[in-house]
């Protein structure tokens, strides 16, 4: 009777594959967990990224459901006088015009020396509260907004207390529950530099079709927020919301046309966009950051796949007897190969499912980290949890199953091609077919050369100014694989060197003998180590270089005595400013030698957003001591009488906009474009979007804006910064006043905190590499079990065999380490001079963290020896014929 193909496969699956997994649950679980960790790293980063981007949804979406359009000024904010003009322009059009003002605020410090970034940032949304009930999405919430406001049953009178009391605030249900706030509760905040105590007048009604309002969202009546933020008569944007109708899109298109037609093209007064455009631009802002994270997480998956390969290969070794029997019974090599591939795919599937669960858990932790970074560098967000996303899960699943099937391809081929006679002869170690590829030194060298050539290629430029160093990433892969392949050859060298030492120890000679003609498995293990060590050490070099550069930059930059900002300004996304009355009072202090009033605005040059900074440029030169990449040719740029048409740009700006000294930039202002010439380029690590510095006076002239972002003060000799700091804090408790030494320490602390994740990645890399080595050792020793039995029969003790295995592991690890460290130097260079420079536009000073690299080497050696020792002990007691 000839069994059908499917029946054979079913039998193979249950009697051949599944039985093995069941009999060795620990190693099965280990393999699954390794894959799961790889998938989890990938999936959690993807989910966290997605949540951070999704968190950018306009906060107003929670109220408007979704606006059809957004109208904003080309630069800066809008005057509220535009509102009646828009209504008149749109005539009878049934559109809700929703004026919006946004700001940020933080609670006051609990203690004077509270660390920076330790307080939560609230997002304050100023909306025309009574008009909200006109929105279709809020019709059912009409009483929700004001039913709880005030103390009267009279819903109309319910408006009065809210509208009259400028300190009225609506909070989310989440915040009310979390902080046990009730209607009437006080809520103390710093808004701009004003310490204010708001009064909770209601809970933001929940729209069932929208996510619940986040805890950090506060809603105030728009004119009240205008007053509190010193922005009387100003708006951030106007959102346009149409009623639900099948003709909604068509009507909006007609209205948009009307708005655009009324906008003078030479000096546009407004920009009309859609919420999707806004999300898109936010998404583009963080694109490079997210892509880098994704690629890092994919590397984790890649290392995981190395292990799947090694694990499956080990399984082939252990089941070779059975394969021979099956082949003798007439099972075709194709059927065996298919069974292996199904098994590999099943490992991918199960490992991935485990990984999805782990990844989802990991995402909850990662999202806070990603959210915090996005908040600090890009825009305010309220992300504190990452939702499970089936699309991302499907991507991870497909990736894991395909990759694990591919990883199983070679072992499957080996299994299928194993001649029954070879196994029957129990010839001990076999030639590992993959070894041919891995022993090809020329292939390794070729890959390394290809990688070198690719380093000359420029980054891929994405919309919105983001750059992706694709070629550099491919270089990294080429070098990792190339060095991995090449590494096998060093193994033989080490073996021979060891042999040449003629050490009089059976154990040691036994260990060295296996390396003189390393098997394919040895080479694979070394390649895995090269990959893990190279990446880990490369990352350490990058972080070390970053750290060194930042220390230098921070020391140079913070040369003045006192740095002042709103105590509510904790992040780059903060919109807290210092009102003119306050900063003018501060800079009038007789203790001051000089003061620099910094103002900045986000501007768009073409489609790309960057920062325009109003600054006293001579003060910048004297107290920030910029490191010049292109030094100004003369002192005109520092002379307020001669620098009206000059500007300085940061390195990131120059990279992003591909400009150099002498180039002209056209800056959009409310009165049209103004041209400035680049006088110099300085290195700056403050932001990746780039900065364009102009003289303060120009900034004031062009933007009629007097709100300051920060103040930098230089004191006359003999005055104590600490004393003045205390004096200013007492007079203006809403100001954050920092001495340069404090700020230097905090800046470094925050910087190091953001790199904490890389240490975790480094650790994962080492663990994975060592486990991979243990797998390999197990496979090798399993193959040699007959030899081991012979050696035991000849009188070798179990511990001696274990020591031999430990040494073999250590020597293999040494080969991996040598090449891995070499790769790490190359990768460190690549990360610093290509990937980092191309992505962020920052030039870093190279630092070689020798101590960290030594510790890493010792850790790898120790782990590899221990793994070898334990596997050796285990193998020494294996009977020649016993199944695992």
């Amino acid at each position, binding site marked *: 009777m000839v069994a059908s193909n499917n029946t054979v496969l079913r039998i193979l699956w249950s009697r051949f594959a599944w039985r093995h997994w069941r009999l060795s649950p620990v190693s099965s679980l280990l393999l699954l967990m390794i894959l799961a960790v790889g998938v989890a790293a990938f999936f959690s980063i993807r989910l966290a990224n997605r949540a951070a981007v999704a968190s950018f949804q306009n906060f107003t979406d929670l109220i408007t459901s979704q606006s059809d359009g957004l109208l904003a000024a080309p630069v800066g904010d809008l005057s509220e006088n535009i509102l009646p003009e828009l209504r008149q322009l749109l005539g*009878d059009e*049934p559109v809700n015009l929703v004026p919006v003002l946004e700001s940020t605020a933080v609670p006051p410090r609990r203690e004077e020396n509270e660390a920076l970034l330790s307080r939560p940032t609230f997002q304050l949304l100023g909306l025309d509260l*009574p008009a909200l009930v006109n929105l279709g999405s809020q019709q059912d919430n009409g009483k929700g907004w004001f039913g709880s406001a005030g103390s009267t049953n*009279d819903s109309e*009178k319910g*408006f009065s207390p809210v509208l009259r009391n*400028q300190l009225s605030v609506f909070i989310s249900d989440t915040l009310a529950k979390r902080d046990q706030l009730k209607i009437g509760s006080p809520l103390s905040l710093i808004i701009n530099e004003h310490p204010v105590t708001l009064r909770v007048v209601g809970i933001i009604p929940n729209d069932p079709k929208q996510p619940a309002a986040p805890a950090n969202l506060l809603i105030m009546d728009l004119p009240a927020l205008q007053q509190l933020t010193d922005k009387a008569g100003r708006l951030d944007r106007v959102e346009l919301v*149409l009623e*639900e109708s099948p003709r909604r899109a068509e009507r909006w298109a007609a209205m948009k046309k009307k708005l655009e037609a009324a906008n003078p093209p030479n000096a546009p007064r407004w920009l009309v966009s859609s919420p999707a455009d806004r999300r898109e631009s936010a998404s583009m802002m963080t694109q490079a950051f997210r892509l880098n994270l994704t690629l890092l997480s994919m590397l984790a998956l890649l290392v995981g796949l190395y292990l799947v390969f090694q694990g499956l290969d080990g399984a082939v070794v252990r089941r070779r007897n059975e394969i021979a029997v099956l082949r003798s019974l007439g099972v075709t090599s194709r059927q065996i190969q298919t069974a292996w591939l199904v098994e590999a795919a099943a490992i991918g599937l199960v490992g991935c499912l485990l990984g999805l669960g782990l990844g989802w858990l990991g995402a909850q932790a990662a999202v806070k980290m990603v959210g915090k970074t996005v908040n600090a560098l890009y825009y305010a967000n309220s992300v504190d949890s990452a939702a499970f996303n089936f699309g991302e899960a499907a991507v991870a699943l497909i990736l894991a199953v395909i990759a694990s099937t591919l990883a199983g391809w070679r072992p499957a081929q080996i299994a299928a091609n194993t001649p029954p006679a070879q196994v029957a002869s129990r010839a001990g170690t076999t030639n590992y077919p993959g070894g041919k590829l891995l022993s090809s030194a020329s292939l390794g060298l070729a890959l390394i050369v290809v990688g070198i050539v690719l380093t000359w290629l420029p980054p891929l430029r994405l919309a919105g100014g983001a750059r992706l160093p694709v070629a550099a990433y491919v270089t990294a892969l080429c070098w990792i694989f190339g060095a991995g392949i090449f590494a096998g050859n060093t193994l033989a060298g080490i073996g021979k060197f060891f042999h040449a030492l003629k050490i009089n120890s059976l154990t040691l000679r036994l260990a060295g003998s296996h390396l003189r003609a390393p098997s394919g498995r040895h080479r694979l293990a070394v390649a895995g180590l090269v990959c893990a060590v190279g990446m880990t050490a490369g990352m350490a070099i990058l972080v070390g270089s970053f750290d060194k550069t930042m220390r230098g930059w921070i020391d140079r930059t913070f040369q003045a005595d006192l740095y002042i900002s709103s105590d509510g300004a904790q992040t780059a996304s903060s919109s807290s400013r210092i009102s003119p009355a306050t900063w003018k009072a501060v800079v009038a202090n007789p203790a001051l030698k000089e003061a620099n009033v910094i103002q900045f605005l986000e501007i768009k040059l073409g489609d790309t957003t960057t920062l325009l900074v109003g600054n006293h440029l001579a003060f910048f030169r004297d107290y920030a001591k910029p490191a010049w990449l292109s030094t100004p040719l003369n002192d005109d740029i520092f002379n307020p009488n001669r620098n009206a048409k000059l500007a300085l740009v940061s390195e990131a700006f120059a990279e992003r906009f591909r400009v150099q000294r002498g180039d002209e930039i056209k800056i959009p202002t409310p009165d049209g474009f103004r041209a400035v010439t680049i006088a110099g380029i300085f290195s700056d690590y403050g932001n990746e979007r780039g900065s364009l510095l102009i003289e303060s006076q120009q900034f004031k002239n062009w933007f009629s804006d007097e709100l300051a972002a920060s103040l930098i003060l230089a004191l006359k000799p003999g005055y104590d910064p600490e004393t003045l700091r205390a004096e200013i804090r007492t007079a203006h408790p809403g100001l954050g006043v920092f001495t340069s030494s404090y700020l230097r320490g905090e800046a470094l602390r925050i910087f190091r905190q953001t790199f904490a994740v890389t240490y975790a990645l480094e650790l994962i890399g080492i663990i994975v590499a060592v486990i991979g080595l243990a797998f390999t050792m197990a496979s090798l020793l399993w193959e040699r079990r007959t030899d081991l039995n012979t050696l035991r029969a000849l009188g070798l003790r179990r511990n001696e065999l274990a020591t031999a295995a430990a040494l073999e592991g250590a020597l293999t690890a040494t080969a991996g380490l040598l090449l891995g460290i070499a790769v790490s130097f190359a990768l460190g260079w690549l990360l610093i001079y290509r990937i980092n420079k191309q992505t962020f536009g920052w030039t870093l000073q190279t630092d070689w963290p020798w101590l960290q690299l030594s510790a890493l080497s010792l850790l790898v050696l120790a782990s590899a020896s221990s793994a070898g020792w334990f596997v050796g002990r285990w193998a020494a007691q294996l009977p020649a014929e016993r199944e695992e």
Partner: protein
Amino acid sequence: MKILENNFNKQNFRCVCALLFSMVFFSRADAAEFPASTADGYAIPQPGKQFSFPRDHGSHPDFAIEWWYITGHLFATNDAQFGFQATFFRRALMPPGATNSSASTAFGNDQIYLAHVALVDKTTGKFIYQEKLNRAGWDAASATNTLDVRNGNWSLRLAPEKIGGRERFELHGTVGLDAAFVLNLSPKKPMVIFGTNGVSRKAADVNAASHYLTYPRLATDGTLTLAGKKLAVTGEAWMDHEFSSSQLGAGQVGWDWLSVQLFDGRELMAYRMRRTDGATDPFSTVAWVDAQSVVRQIGPDKFDWKMLEHWHSAKSNSDYPSLVELTAENPVTGKKEHFIVRPFAADQELVGQAGGVGYWEGACHVWDESQKEIGRAYLELTGYSESLKGKL
């Protein structure tokens, strides 16, 4: 056109005569009775007020409550018929002269404007409506020197130029994205002022009184756009302008109000102030407007308001009268006349999400006792879902 102008002048003259007549002979409103303002400082309507137009078409911010109210019946060229309502409310949030901490003119906090636009297709009974609520400022305002009131994209304005010697009002309204109208309203008859000596009382409490100005019949034409399809329409409308500082007295929960345009050229305005026990308050009235705009009012002893059927609103869980029979004594003939009022559609309820005041306001047929159709009406039923006391 000349004939029309002459007629109109004659009508104006008659109206003035009628006013003088009512002021002299039927005055129950003694100025001494009426304090100048409420306890919280809002103005109270004063008997003998000298109205001046167009100023008094405009807003009176000294009073707490004001509304401009237009209802009407439209006939499209394709034989479709519609009833429409557009109401612009103003409600003061603080009495005149109160200290106002808000410096914002774009986002005021002293007045709030509520508006309703409703449309009923008389053939299908489909009723649609929308509410708008805006604070005084950039998106809602009412002029004090003429009629120019707007709320969002809705507006009611007195056109600067007269047509044939008659005023012309422009009304712009929309319901959602799919219904819009632009209507020209021109008085067919002179304006009337209800009440006694210029004061329309609603309760024994003198605070509960209003100045109540009405154009009982306005020729209407314009366009109605439904789902992108533009229809030319003509018809007749009724326009009220009422301002007060309180519309209800102690023990009252709401009112039933009716405006009837009879085919014979007369109009009828009736309101029944309802007490908490459902009884008719003695300050209820029926006002007869004859073909010459002469107003004659009768008290509740001379009319009978019967609710023959009810309709239950699931949305507000309220029972509204849906068939009303009004029997009123004609003050000219002394005979009783019967008016059976039945809505074109049962559901013409405005639930009141935005303003918090739910009511029913709908276009109705008017039949006599022989079931002969004798006119068209708008019926307003308030205080059925909840008491309006303290709100209006």
